[in-house]
């Protein structure tokens, strides 16, 4: 085991997760945060700011926290510098672009991961173990939610930068979780979308009714519908109904209830004290870079999850359920 910390940089700080990932890089043993390259003048993580070319010369791994539309550009730069990549989700705004990203990394010989922190949720891990252990029999119905209030940056409302609204932003976390827990792929998607909560050019209602490849119904609500004054940022939940029982997961239901009479934010707030999922994500990526192994969620998974998003938009266009069209899988 190497004693030299893995040098990590953050490419773009457009995505609000940049700050949490910077904190996680600092917190993880065996990693060091070299700096951030910003493209929007907002170096929110407290770290040295430097041009991307300089940063990429000094790091072995890069975490891309850009807008959805520029993931490909950043991956290209990192890959051509020989730097392994952890890319914010969704991997891209189309299957074609996501596939290009995977090919770029394959050809450059760099590792590619997609940021799916829920894989490192301890409640989700217990749920997966219960399902894998046969505790609830055969799966019969899955209902997920990944609700949010207002996204953390204005570009999420810009179709050019975000590639879409809540469907693009808040579908893939729970789809990834379900793929991981069940080992199944989504085969069909019916979507109900709407713009009901924000003055926006994109949809903020993301309600999907899907089937897995064994026929199990799977619905997911990823709407940006929670009030600004809600006591928490949102949620990530799954209810897995099996032939012999039910597993329910609420990934962030480990909170203190804090009520403040004064200060900047009077009112009730829930403060999370469960295990830090971002640290789990970054630790896995750092170990993948150090040990030259695939990260937990690879680009191939990222492509398949973007395919589900693409099918959801296809369903909206057709007003009917549509089959998910996966590109032929490539093997490394």
């Amino acid at each position: 085991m190497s004693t030299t910390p893995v040098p990590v940089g953050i490419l773009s700080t457009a995505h609000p997760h940049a700050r949490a990932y910077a904190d996680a890089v600092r917190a993880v043993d065996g990693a060091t945060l070299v700096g951030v390259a910003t493209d929007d003048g907002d170096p929110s993580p407290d770290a040295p700011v430097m041009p991307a070319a300089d940063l990429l010369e000094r790091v072995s791994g890069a975490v891309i926290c850009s807008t959805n539309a520029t993931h490909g550009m950043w991956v290209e730069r990192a890959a051509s510098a020989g730097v392994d990549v952890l890319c914010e989700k969704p991997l891209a705004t189309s299957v074609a672009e996501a596939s290009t990203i995977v090919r770029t990394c394959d050809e450059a010989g760099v590792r590619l991961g997609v940021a799916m922190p829920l894989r490192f949720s301890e409640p989700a891990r217990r749920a997966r173990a219960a399902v894998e252990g046969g505790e609830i029999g055969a799966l019969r119905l899955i209902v997920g939610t990944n609700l949010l209030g207002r996204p953390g940056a204005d570009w999420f409302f810009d179709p050019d930068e975000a590639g879409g609204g809540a469907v693009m932003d808040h579908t893939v976390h729970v789809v990834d979780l379900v793929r991981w827990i069940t080992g199944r792929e989504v085969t069909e998607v019916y979507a109900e979308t709407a713009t009901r909560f924000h003055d926006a050019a994109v949809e903020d209602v993301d309600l999907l009714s899907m089937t897995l490849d064994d026929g199990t119904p799977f619905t997911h609500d990823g709407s940006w519908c929670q009030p600004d004054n809600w006591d928490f940022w949102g949620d990530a939940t799954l209810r897995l109904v099996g032939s012999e029982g039910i597993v329910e997961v609420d990934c962030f239901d480990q909170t203190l209830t804090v009520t403040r009479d004064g200060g900047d934010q009077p009112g009730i707030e829930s403060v999370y004290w469960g295990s830090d999922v971002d640290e789990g994500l970054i630790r896995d990526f750092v170990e993948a870079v150090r040990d030259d192994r695939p990260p937990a969620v690879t680009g191939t998974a990222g492509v398949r999850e973007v395919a589900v998003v693409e099918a959801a938009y296809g369903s909206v266009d057709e007003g009917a359920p549509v089959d998910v069209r996966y590109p032929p899988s490539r093997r490394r």
Partner: protein
Amino acid sequence: MLTVGLIGAGAMARVHAERVDAIDGVEITAVASPNTAASFADAHVPGAAVYSDVESLCEDRSVDVIDVCTPTHMHRDIVEVAAAAGCHVLCEKPIARTVAGAEAIAEAVADANVVFMVGHAIRFFPEYVEAKRLVDEGAIGEPGVVRARRSVSFGGERGWQGDERKSGGVLLDLAVHDLDYLRWVVGDVERVFTRISKWGDDGENHASTTTLRFENGAVGHVESTWMRLPTLPFTAAFELAGDEGLVEYDTGEVEPVAIRDADRVHVPTDPVGHDVPLARDGYRTQLDHFFDCVRGDEDPLVTVDDAIEALRLSLAAIESAETGLPVAVEEVGQ
């Protein structure tokens, strides 16, 4: 004194009998059921006359009200007999098994000019009433995404509910509660899309999920499950999200009294039992309201058209689950 003839001797008949017993000025004077009317009356309505069916009851004696607590597929014939006898009718949900049956009921009660209401009971459950009031007051602004779910478990014989020709399965017998409620809160529904899993002996376990598109553009989700898993507590929950707020409810988070001893952990959640700690539960409030309607003091909170629309929502969901396609609600039964 209002006199009531109770039709049926099952679980809902017991729920009604126990509550009517506490209402002043109303008395169940007769019970009709094919085989078990006498034993039911002995246990729950001592002194009531017993009959094998509604026809013999109505021929033999005069009652003001017929309270229909029978399997769904029998509602039509019973309501037609009761209305022809000039009785006001309270009928368990759903109104009927088919749109044709429901329309026949609507015609019969209109012709007889009697008070008629379908027992969409959760419209009287205080948590649901309060949430509706808050939405009407503008607490959440314009509704955007509304979700409701309901899960019940069973242990012994399934009886008529297990026969989909009689009950319509989970999408009619159970989902109709939440479909009616969301329509009451948000408005008419344009289309539904439903998926369902059935498994076990005779496909007795049902787990379903329905998406709704309301005419005002809001979107909804209804999850309804019944399964043979006696350890599973009754659960019901809803989240009503609008552009200015959110109302949430979950039976799993309501624990006003809990009893824990060596044998059990008991947290009352099942509204059909008497154990939910309310001075007057929703079933009692529903009965009080209906008797006020009979006296001419109030108008039925659930109109016959409401009950038919709730039925059509469930039938649309069943059709969608069978075809795999979204179904326009207004086309159901046309």
